[in-house]
């Protein structure tokens, strides 16, 4: 197979510019992503993670109404927005509260023991090292525009990787896999390392990059789901005035209704009426399954917030399922500590690919591609096309 010098030059141009634009941001994302892989461990070591106390007797789970009453009592000025349970921690409910039901930030978090309904802690998740890393990684402290911008950089990364694969062929054609010519100049050594680390991390970078891009669209996907499926489920309530806070009925009853509707699932996330993940009239209980995959998916069940009666439940659409499944593939949090360590090592290798790419560009920034091709052991046929 051959590739014309003109085509190769186009791919080289694409690789150079897509990489140059996204590399500073990708290095930032790789560096801030590194501590986020171990956020549980870091929070545990620094004592900022709330852990369920060991009880002498194995207690049954407390009444959900007592639980939310305890949370509300600890922050009387705030409204409950949601309750959330981590995948591997059934003894805790993390309660998100805010003075404005629709707001995503500036709220309070109250952690309640699911067995005793006692408030364990009120951690401030909007401060500290991990919060700064998280915000830099997710939206550069710029909200949705920041997310979408990083998503765009992610798309450039994907273009850079794909064009890099095309360029790998002519550069490596005459070399054995994994060759690093240590007897040559420093630039050649780094070129070889760039090619080696780049081609080996290829699949992982594409998966983590693509799922990262998908995650930048999460807010929009949820909004679309509201508009698409939730709107249909709550159509009968369209003309009714939303219930005021003191008209809300028992959460425990709603949760029980959801459990009865989906007996083989358990509640993982509960959204209060008026928040972005529910309607103005409903408690939405997101039920999760018990297999490794279904535990990460959610079945939304809507209950009338006044009566606790079942309103509707529909299988989440493909785009929501896709978003939920893309998250573990971005976080690397589904294979225990060994997977986290491998995730971190692949992340470091990616930093080296990015850094070496930048170095190679800097060294050759004024040299035309023809000269680059001449030093790269390319083999050209009689017509000047490059074999690959």
């Amino acid at each position, binding site marked *: 197979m051959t590739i014309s010098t003109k085509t190769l030059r186009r791919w080289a141009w694409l690789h150079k510019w897509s990489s140059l634009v996204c590399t500073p941001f990708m290095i930032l994302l790789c560096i801030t992503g590194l501590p986020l892989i171990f956020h549980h461990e870091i929070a545990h070591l620094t004592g900022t993670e709330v852990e369920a106390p060991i009880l002498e007797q194995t207690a049954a789970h407390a009444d959900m109404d007592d639980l939310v009453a305890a949370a509300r009592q600890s922050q009387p000025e705030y409204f409950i927005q949601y309750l959330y349970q981590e995948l591997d921690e059934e003894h805790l409910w993390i309660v998100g509260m805010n003075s404005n039901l629709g707001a995503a930030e500036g709220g309070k978090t109250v952690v309640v023991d699911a067995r005793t309904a006692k408030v364990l802690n009120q951690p401030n998740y909007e401060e500290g090292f991990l919060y700064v890393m998280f915000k830099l990684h997710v939206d550069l402290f710029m909200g949705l525009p920041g997310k979408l911008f990083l998503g765009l950089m992610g798309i450039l990364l994907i273009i850079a990787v794909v064009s890099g694969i095309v360029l790998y062929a002519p550069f490596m054609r005459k070399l054995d896999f994994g060759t690093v010519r240590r007897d040559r100049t420093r630039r050649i050594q780094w070129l070889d390392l760039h090619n080696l680390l780049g081609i080996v991390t290829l*699949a992982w970078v594409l998966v983590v990059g693509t799922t990262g891009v998908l995650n930048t669209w999460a807010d929009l996907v949820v909004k679309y789901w509201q508009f698409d499926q939730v709107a249909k489920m709550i159509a009968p309530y369209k003309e009714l005035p939303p219930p005021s806070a003191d008209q809300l009925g028992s959460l425990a009853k709603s949760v029980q209704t959801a459990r009865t509707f989906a007996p083989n699932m358990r509640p993982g996330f509960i959204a209060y009426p008026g928040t972005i993940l529910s309607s103005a009239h409903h408690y939405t209980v997101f039920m999760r399954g018990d297999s*490794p995959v279904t535990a990460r998916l959610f079945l939304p069940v809507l209950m009338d917030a006044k009566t606790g009666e079942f309103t509707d439940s529909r299988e989440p659409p493909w785009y929501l399922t896709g978003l939920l499944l893309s998250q573990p593939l971005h976080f690397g949090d589904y*294979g225990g500590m060994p997977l986290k360590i491998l995730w971190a090592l692949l992340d470091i290798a990616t930093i080296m690919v990015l850094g070496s790419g930048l170095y190679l560009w800097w060294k050759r920034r004024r040299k035309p591609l023809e000269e680059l091709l001449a030093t790269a052991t390319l083999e050209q046929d009689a017509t000047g096309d490059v074999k690959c």
Partner: protein
Amino acid sequence: MLKLWLWPIVLATLTLTGLISGLVSNSIGDLWAWIGLGAPVLVMVYFGFVRKI
């Protein structure tokens, strides 16, 4: 062609099957995920930093 692409294809296949198996199954799936992602890491360490030629 094969000489050029054999190892990249093998490593990408290991990576992708590892990423998916860890997600769909816990015990054996996680084990395969560690192997599938561990192999590329070992290859990088060996060729990039251990082998001296």
